[in-house]
């Protein structure tokens, strides 16, 4: 496990909530930020703030340099071939919507298929629903196995030569399941489809390699990986991005503007209309530096160990159901559960009174909740700053909630 010292990098963790030291177990919703990231944002605004790609002046150069350096860091982070393939956006939601509206509208026609799974987050469902409705295309769902994993046989059954887009989350925000993206991408490609990956829950926790995965698009958000809110990345293969039309038009993204027609800048800027998210990108760059310093492989191992420990201790509580794969090696540091006789909201309130932050609700995955046949669940998600003590505090809180509601 990682050293407890890591906590010291995160100033927010050093506080009491309702009279108890904070135990933050909601990193799958958003992670906390290390001092380095907070400092990078402050430094940018205090010393370098300016618009990018246009000013001749020195501040403009500094801001441009900071912004484009962050792009290089993001490229390296996911092992993309070129920074032209890294487009800064508001987050994974915007990135997935961009793929649907740009690539999707141009390439999906009547009767074509879009394939997703039952475990998707709303942000990887609704853009495709909208596209399917507009084009008269068919939206198909890959069914899940009983333990909340995907079987490649079912992927093969669902994907056909009419499939134009396969879009799957890398790591489930509810079940914690890690999906076999590389294998699914092979099946998609064999059927002439592109492979889109929602990497929102993967980027914070595992080493991403878009070349190895051979995915065509990948979306992730900065705020779940120690970065600021309002910044994320759309990765796309250069040959695809080159064919695609921007969906936002305005400043920054143009080459020549005439009265009745205009042309676009080259990649990646043609997709970055308007003043870009400069501070956000610089903050994301600082977060990437931080994660690389700690080591993604160490972070992944740390989370496996904590989730495994939590699952083990939680299953000793009578009436507690854990959803998703029971083998901790098949999942990221996310443990979603229900405690018999205590509604998840009540549970979250009792835990909050003990200083413990968990998520309760449908986790933006209503189709998955239906599949699990529950209306809501509670979720504890672990990150690099969580410790074994946090697991103990959680289990203690759960026992108290059970007793209180008996």
């Amino acid at each position, binding site marked *: 496990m990682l050293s407890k010292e890591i906590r010291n990098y995160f100033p927010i963790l050093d506080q009491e909530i309702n009279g108890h030291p904070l135990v933050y177990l909601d990193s799958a919703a958003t992670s906390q930020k290390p001092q380095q990231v907070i400092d990078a944002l402050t430094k940018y605004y205090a010393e370098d703030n300016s618009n990018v790609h246009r000013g001749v002046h020195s501040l403009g150069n500094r801001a441009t340099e900071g912004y484009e350096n962050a792009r290089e860091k993001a490229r390296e982070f996911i092992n993309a071939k070129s920074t032209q393939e890294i487009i800064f956006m508001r987050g994974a939601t915007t990135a997935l919507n961009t793929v649907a509206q740009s690539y999707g509208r141009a390439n999906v026609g009547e009767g074509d298929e879009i394939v997703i799974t039952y475990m998707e987050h709303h942000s990887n469902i609704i853009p495709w629903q909208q596209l399917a409705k507009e084009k008269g295309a068919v939206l198909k769902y890959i069914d899940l196995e009983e333990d909340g994993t995907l079987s490649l046989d079912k992927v093969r059954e669902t994907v056909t030569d009419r499939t134009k887009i396969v879009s799957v989350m890398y790591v489930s925000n509810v079940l914690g399941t890690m999906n076999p993206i590389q294998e699914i991408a092979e099946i998609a490609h064999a059927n002439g489809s592109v492979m889109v990956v929602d990497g929102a829950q993967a980027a914070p926790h595992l080493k991403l390699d878009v070349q190895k995965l051979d995915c065509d698009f990948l979306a992730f958000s900065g705020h779940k990986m120690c970065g600021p809110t309002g910044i994320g990345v759309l990765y796309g293969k250069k040959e695809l991005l080159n064919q695609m039309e921007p969906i936002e038009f305005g400043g920054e993204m143009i080459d020549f503007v005439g009265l009745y027609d205009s042309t676009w800048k080259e990649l990646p800027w043609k997709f970055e209309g308007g003043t870009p998210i400069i501070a956000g990108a610089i903050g994301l760059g600082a977060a990437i530096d931080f994660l690389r310093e700690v080591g993604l492989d160490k972070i992944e191992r740390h989370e496996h160990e904590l989730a495994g420990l939590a699952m083990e201790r939680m299953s000793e509580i009578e009436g507690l159901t854990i959803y998703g794969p029971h083998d901790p090696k098949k999942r990221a540091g996310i443990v979603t559960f229900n405690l018999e006789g205590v*509604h998840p909201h009540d549970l979250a309130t009792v835990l909050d009174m003990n200083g413990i932050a968990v998520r309760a*609700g449908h986790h933006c995955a209503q189709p998955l*909740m239906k599949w699990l046949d529950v209306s809501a669940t509670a979720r504890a998600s672990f990150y690099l700053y969580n410790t074994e003590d946090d697991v103990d505090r959680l289990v203690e809180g759960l026992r108290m909630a059970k007793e209180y509601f008996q």
Partner: protein
Amino acid sequence: MSTNKLDQLYRSVIMDHYKNPRNKGVLSDNNVTIDMNNPTCGDVIHLTLQVEDGVVQDAKFEGEGCSISMASASMMTQLVKGKKTEDAVQYAHLFSDMMLGKDVDDSVDLGDIEALSGVAKFPARIKCATLAWKALEKGVGNESEA
């Protein structure tokens, strides 16, 4: 830890309504049906009312949700039965004020719903408590306009 603060929220009368909900079910001879959900958390309510001559003659609810939302629904149905629709709407407004932490007219007999006043101190749970009342307001509001 002590459970003092929790006890302000989960008063015994609330827990009683949660565990033994009043008016649970579906009215077969209903003439007003309202389905509502709380999209942020997944709570749902199916409220059926029988309204005649401007009076809520009967009310039943079904739903899924936390102790606060289900207890609130149980208390709401108990309170509005036999009330004029405009009075029912008044109660819904009064309940909303109570959740905002505003002082409410203490001449009004709140009955069991007074126990929910502690919810105002738990901002994240206010929506749980108001779901049933919003359903009521929609139901009788439409009815009194009809």
